[in-house]
């Protein structure tokens, strides 16, 4: 019997749903065993189980495509509402594969740095165990459809992600970790409150059953007015908690110090994957649980916050003094794009918006993981990542600079990158009436090009002290470019994948029609006019920024600098604990008003 024949019942047959629990069990098992093996064993176990997990995720995606409909599995044989069910649909399969792939790549990249001989036992054991914990939490979030089960998965994620922030053990990292923990805990408590109310309203925690009851298909007929508004209020509570965990601006107080201070591979995972976990749950709540969200004003609230994040995040990235913080603020801006989903999916031609949001998750995960690993490489090479003292670093590390530019172009949305697909699909979902959203998309792309150009200008200008390049503390090996290069190329060339592959996203969500939407977007990009209309402005802005920086000190430059400092001051206020706490409650109330009026 061939291997394919042995695997048949799971890959294309009646046992396909049995793949779901192992996707959760493998990372949990590995995380529990890792500390028993000690630091050395933990590293090997993590790498081995990640490879196994990637194979499992690919198998589950294949099984899903073969089945053509979502897979569900009742754990213990107990169906909801009494038991807990796992489910796999197209978006979940995409996230499973993306997560496993990024973790495998980051794991391989980090294997040299995080070993007992280089990092010590404490850091080695903690890094690999917590990485497995992050993986377990994320997979739980993708597969879960029970609101409380999802709560526990979120907590697995939080408890693993927080200590990753302070592995270096400095005061700034510890403080960042504490802030992250406490803000995330407030978010979890709000989420849990919503879930509890949902149980009281419906007697079930299963997202599908609640959605059915709200849509009027429940066993007891249609939901009454009080139950409906109560349910919306419960979703608002959960949504607010998840916004805090996703660090959507202005609830971002913890992200820059946390992602900027963690070791580079940890930052890569936190930025590429962890914040997407809570977003994925928001996607589920607003698109799967709430019937007809387009009739509510919630899209306006979340979309406005997203637009705010795109603009402020990019502007702040442009002004950061440290490379890792620049990359962290760029994450805040890129998270904003995810939230344009909510207003655009509600519009008349909203189909492609969900595809765009999922592709943004993928594209940003790949490009940002690459950028954080590269920022770590620069930091190791020069002993710091202060841009002011990195003048000419591109001469010392030319290939590193090339890969940074590749990843940056993917973020800026040059065709055929994932970022381009996102902008194109969001643009077509926005249509003519959504010109405001389209303007934000375009400005966001130009601002990303601007901070990329700033890095470029720093990289090529003469170093301080008249030398051609800054002093190298340690020359990094060329092998370390392999993983960032792969990630950056994947992000940059995402649009060249056969459009048929994107049909995976549509399993269980035929209305998305991803394959056709992606094919249409790529046709637009390859037409000569389309290519230059998306590329021309980006190159122009990049050139302008390079010239601006090269021009040196002028009165005009000083005026721009003063404006920037003013903006940074306002943004600094937003990151104060008390202000962020008040904003959390204000956003809670704004969402409540949006859904209940």
């Amino acid at each position, binding site marked *: 019997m061939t291997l394919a024949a042995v695997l048949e019942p799971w890959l294309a047959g009646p046992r396909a749903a049995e793949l779901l629990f192992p996707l959760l069990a493998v990372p949990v098992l590995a995380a529990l065993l890792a500390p028993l093996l000690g630091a050395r064993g933990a590293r090997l176990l993590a790498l081995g189980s990640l490879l196994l997990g990637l194979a499992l995720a690919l198998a589950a995606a294949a099984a899903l495509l073969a089945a053509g409909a979502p897979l569900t599995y009742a754990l213990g044989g107990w169906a909801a509402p009494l038991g807990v069910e796992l489910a796999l649909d197209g978006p979940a399969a995409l996230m499973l594969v993306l997560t496993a792939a990024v973790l495998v790549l980051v794991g391989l990249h980090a294997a040299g740095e995080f070993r007992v001989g280089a990092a010590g036992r404490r850091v080695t054991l903690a890094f690999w165990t917590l990485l497995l914990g992050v993986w377990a939490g994320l997979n739980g979030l993708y597969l879960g459809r029970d609101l409380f089960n999802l709560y526990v998965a979120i907590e697995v994620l939080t408890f693993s992600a927080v200590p990753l922030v302070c592995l270096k053990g400095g005061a700034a990292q510890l403080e960042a970790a504490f802030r992250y923990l406490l803000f995330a805990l407030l978010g979890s408590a709000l989420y849990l409150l919503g879930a509890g109310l949902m149980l009281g309203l419906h007697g079930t925690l299963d997202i599908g059953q609640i959605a059915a009851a709200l849509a009027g298909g429940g066993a007891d007929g249609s939901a009454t007015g009080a139950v409906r508004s109560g349910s919306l209020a419960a979703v608002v509570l959960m949504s607010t908690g998840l916004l805090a965990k996703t660090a959507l601006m202005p609830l971002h107080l913890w992200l820059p110090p946390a992602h900027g201070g963690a070791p580079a591979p940890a930052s890569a995972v936190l930025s590429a994957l962890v914040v997407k976990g809570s977003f994925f749950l928001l996607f589920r709540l607003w698109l799967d649980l709430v019937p007809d969200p387009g009739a509510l004003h919630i899209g306006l609230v979340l979309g406005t916050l997203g637009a705010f994040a795109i603009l402020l995040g990019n502007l702040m990235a442009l002004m950061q003094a440290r490379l890792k913080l620049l990359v962290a603020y760029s994450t805040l801006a890129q998270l904003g794009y995810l939230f344009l989903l909510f207003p655009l999916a509600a519009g008349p031609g909203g189909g492609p918006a969900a595809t765009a949001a999922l592709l943004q998750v993928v594209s940003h995960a790949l490009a940002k993981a690459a950028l954080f690993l590269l920022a770590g490489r620069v930091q190791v090479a020069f002993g710091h990542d202060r841009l002011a003292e990195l003048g000419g670093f591109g001469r010392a590390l030319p290939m590193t600079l090339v890969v940074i530019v590749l990843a940056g172009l993917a973020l800026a949305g040059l065709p055929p990158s994932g970022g381009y697909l996102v902008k194109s699909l969001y643009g077509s979902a926005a249509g003519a009436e959504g010109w405001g959203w389209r303007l934000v998309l375009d400005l966001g792309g130009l601002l990303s090009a601007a901070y990329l150009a700033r890095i470029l200008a720093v990289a090529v200008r003469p170093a301080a002290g008249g030398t051609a390049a800054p002093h190298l503390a340690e020359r990094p090996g060329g092998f370390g470019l392999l993983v960032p290069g792969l990630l950056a190329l994947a992000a940059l060339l995402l649009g060249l994948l056969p459009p048929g592959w994107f049909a995976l996203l549509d399993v269980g969500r035929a209305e998305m029609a991803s394959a056709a939407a992606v094919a249409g977007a790529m046709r637009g990009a390859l037409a000569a006019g389309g290519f230059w209309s998306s590329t021309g402005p980006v190159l122009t802005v990049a050139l302008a920024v390079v010239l601006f920086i090269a021009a040196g000190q002028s009165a005009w430059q000083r005026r721009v600098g003063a404006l920037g400092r003013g903006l940074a001051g306002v943004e600094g206020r937003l990151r104060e604990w008390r202000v962020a706490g008040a904003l959390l409650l*204000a956003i809670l109330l704004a969402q409540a008003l949006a859904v209940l009026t």
Partner: protein
Amino acid sequence: MLPDPRLADLPLVVALLALALWLIATRHDRSAIIGFTAYGLIVAIVWVRLGALDVALTEAALGGIMGLLLLMAAARLGDAPDGPPPTWPLRVLVGLLCGAVTAGLAVLVLTLPEPAPNLVAAVAEQQSATALKNPVAAVLVAFRAVDTLLESAVLALAVIGLWSVGADAAWGERPRALDSDAPDPALVLLARLLPPVGLVVGVHLFWTGADHPGGPFQAGALLAAMVALVWLARLGAPPPVRSRLTRVGLMLGPLVFLLIGLAGVVAADAYLAYPEALTKPLILLIEAAKTLSVAVALALLVAGPPALPRARP
């Protein structure tokens, strides 16, 4: 039975709210924490009033070590505020926002549907399949086994995360957050008298948890409190974090649970299902391992990250 139940409930509610307000208003961290311990006791009584004995036991058992944890932290952190007091406009604004949240929640609580949807009948109907007479235990170990499993993984990961907070030089050492120079003689006496009683009650809670209120969480929390008391009185010391035996104790509960759950797909048609003939012994095995691991995890969480012995001047 009291003539009007509110005669008992209203004072409890007033006490809770008044104590909560005092807790956030009082000046000293230490008195706030002592107040919080008292608050926990009232909450435990409230759970009895709500007919949730399993929760009441958990709350009571956890309350003790929570108070210990916070008191030790307050002793090490000092009593200084870490910023200027909030301005009045900010206080009013945050107060209004919190008031709005409370008002909204109050409306939600009062408009919950009637008759209340519930799973009492569903649990009662299927409970016999689990060989457990305590419905809460059946939910925890059978119907929602995956949550309980992930939650024990959270505990284990929390301990690893907590250990990772320690200094590099201290890695492999033992935790020292409970160390004090000279423990109070009264405390030492208590630590000699109480643990044997606690051990008996803990084992009882575990053993009867299948049919009556109690179970691995309650028993584990109580055992952890006893262990922490012994460490606090310096009648024993927490094991060093390099100890493999400690780590086995920490991971055994979730590991046994997960492995039995995985085997279920072969032995009982579904992951996290139990084969009919072996349901009772397997659940007993899971709960015993879990009690041990909960006790180890909670005690280690109170004991803090590994640390070097304090240099004596």
